[in-house]
């Protein structure tokens, strides 16, 4: 079953009179439960593709489907609603709200979804436990290590029960040990919850975790390959 489908998508950025073709007719299908890496050199279009799948941006041409729904031409609020209900994000930088504790950061998507306080509490505690940070719930981001912050971000991405989690260079700012720990956490959650993970990376140590690798170059998909499961 397809979670996301991209059909002949292009994305052109125009700055002044200069046009930059970030994506040049990409088609891709992502099934439920996949653990897929988007790889390619800088400027290949990995981040742009993630942003289009994640409804953060809109394609210049082509269509993006999420759970069968065409999300290519939705307005801002509709895209925000889709992101809230269907997508979770993990960014390269540790994208936590600095004034909120780990608990409150994870709670935020649930607040936006209008969940009741008991529901929120149960879900947040469960998620923090699943990323091994139950004892850090009351810590603010500046009191957490980079790896811990990224695991909080993973917990937050899972909070609203999305069908797809998009991670853009999730280990780029982490050392090897923390990077591996974050990837193992994501993999375990993929296995346990069945949620689909798509992550962009150009780090070979991260690529090895993927069961499918999609290679991009100059805004085009140049290779699909399946890999043996790790662990």
């Amino acid at each position, binding site marked *: 079953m397809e979670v996301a489908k991209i059909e002949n998508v292009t994305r052109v950025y125009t700055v002044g009179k200069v046009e930059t073709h970030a994506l040049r007719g990409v088609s891709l299908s992502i099934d439920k439960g996949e653990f897929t890496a988007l790889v390619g050199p800088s400027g290949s279009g990995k981040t742009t593709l993630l942003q289009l799948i994640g409804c*953060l*941006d809109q394609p210049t041409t082509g269509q993006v489907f999420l759970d069968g729904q065409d999300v290519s031409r939705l307005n801002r609020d509709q895209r*925000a609603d889709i992101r809230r209900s269907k*997508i979770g994000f993990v960014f390269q930088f540790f994208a936590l709200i*600095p004034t909120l504790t780990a608990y409150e950061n994870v709670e*935020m*998507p649930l607040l*936006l*979804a209008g969940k009741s306080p008991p529901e929120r509490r149960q879900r947040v505690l469960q998620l923090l436990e699943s990323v091994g940070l139950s004892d850090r719930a009351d810590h603010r981001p500046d009191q957490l290590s980079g790896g811990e912050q990224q695991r909080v971000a993973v917990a*937050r991405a899972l909070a609203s029960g999305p069908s797809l989690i998009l991670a853009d260079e999730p280990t780029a700012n982490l050392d090897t040990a923390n990077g591996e720990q974050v990837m193992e956490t994501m993999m375990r959650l993929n296995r346990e919850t069945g949620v689909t993970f798509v992550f962009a990376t150009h780090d070979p140590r991260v690529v090895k975790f993927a069961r499918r690798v999609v290679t991009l170059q100059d805004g085009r998909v140049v290779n699909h390959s399946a890999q043996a499961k790790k662990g």
Partner: protein
Amino acid sequence: MIQLLKLAFRNLGRNRRRSFFSALAMGMALALLLLMASVIRGEMGDAIDLSIRLQSGHLQVRSATYDEAKTSLQWEDLVENPDQVAAQVASLDPVTVATPRLYASGFVTTRNESAPVRAVGIDPPSEANAPYRDGIREGEFLSPDDREGVLIGWSLAQRLDLSTGDTVSLSVNTSNGEVEEQAFTVRGIYSTGTSGFDGLTVLLPLAKAQAFTGAEDHASSIFVLLKDPAQTDAVIAAIQSPGFEVLTWRDMNELLIQTEQLSSGYMVFFYLIVLGIAATVIVNTQIMSVYERTREIGILSAIGMRGRNVMAIFLTESGMLATGGVLLGLLIGGIVIAYFTRYGLPLAVENFGITGMLLRERIYTQLTVQDTVQLTLMSFLVTVLAGLYPAVLASRMEPVAALRAEK
């Protein structure tokens, strides 16, 4: 909602000093507005109150032909049998006191100097003379049968270097158009706290004033104070009679009331300027905050926060700044105004001429509940509205662009 407040509060707490000074700017603006409003209210309210107590009363009953500007002493311009008329007016229930008064223009001469004055014949026992009686600073008050004594205002005594027991020569116009002069003894020196009035007014017993000016059994007017000024119209209806003219305190203080209305008008512009400056500080603070938190706005947007929720966060922060500013303003303004309400604001002007406006030597600020509520609400609203532009700016950020921002 609680989470929104918590988030907004913590955001303001990130840069406590900046938030404090922004709130303080609004607070100072509100304090300034409250102070100005209370000064104007105190000044104008006092001027009207003084004018009523010292000059006009709530009502005056005069001869229909009396011309105040000429201080006429012609019998046909005066009230005949004033004691009888005053007694009739005083018998009305809403009337506190009604007393005859006789006004004559003249001048006081000492050995070295002279000064123009207005001689006022008063009925010494009348309650209407409380401001003079209570204001005696030297000597004693007049008795009704005193034929040689006068009361001199404090500032006139200062100017002419007079003290109790001194002799002065008082010259006044009389009913037959001549000038009469007589020596009087200064029985006492009074102060109403209004140097303009005190420097120009000499008081003497009504009977002596009538004899001195040739007015005989006449008075310039019946000075009337009411229990409640709102009953003015009812009293006028009860005492209207041919040959008399009844003037209200509004009629007699028209210029003063117009001045008050005018000052209320220009104060609005003053308020707008002050609030405009304070609003600029708030806009600046919030715009800085939006740009500093661009990436966070992108994160919130990425996890599904709608633009209007982002806007709500920034508006809540403006609301909190406004609340803090209002509390600071009420505190600072309250302390300053309480001080000036008690001790007064020194006012080094004498103003008793062109406008006929009586001013105390100090302005005692008066802060009304209405002014406080209106100005507080206005300051609060301006602060929140000032936060509207940065909030809209934040809400319209594209998530992709916001996420790309430098931390």
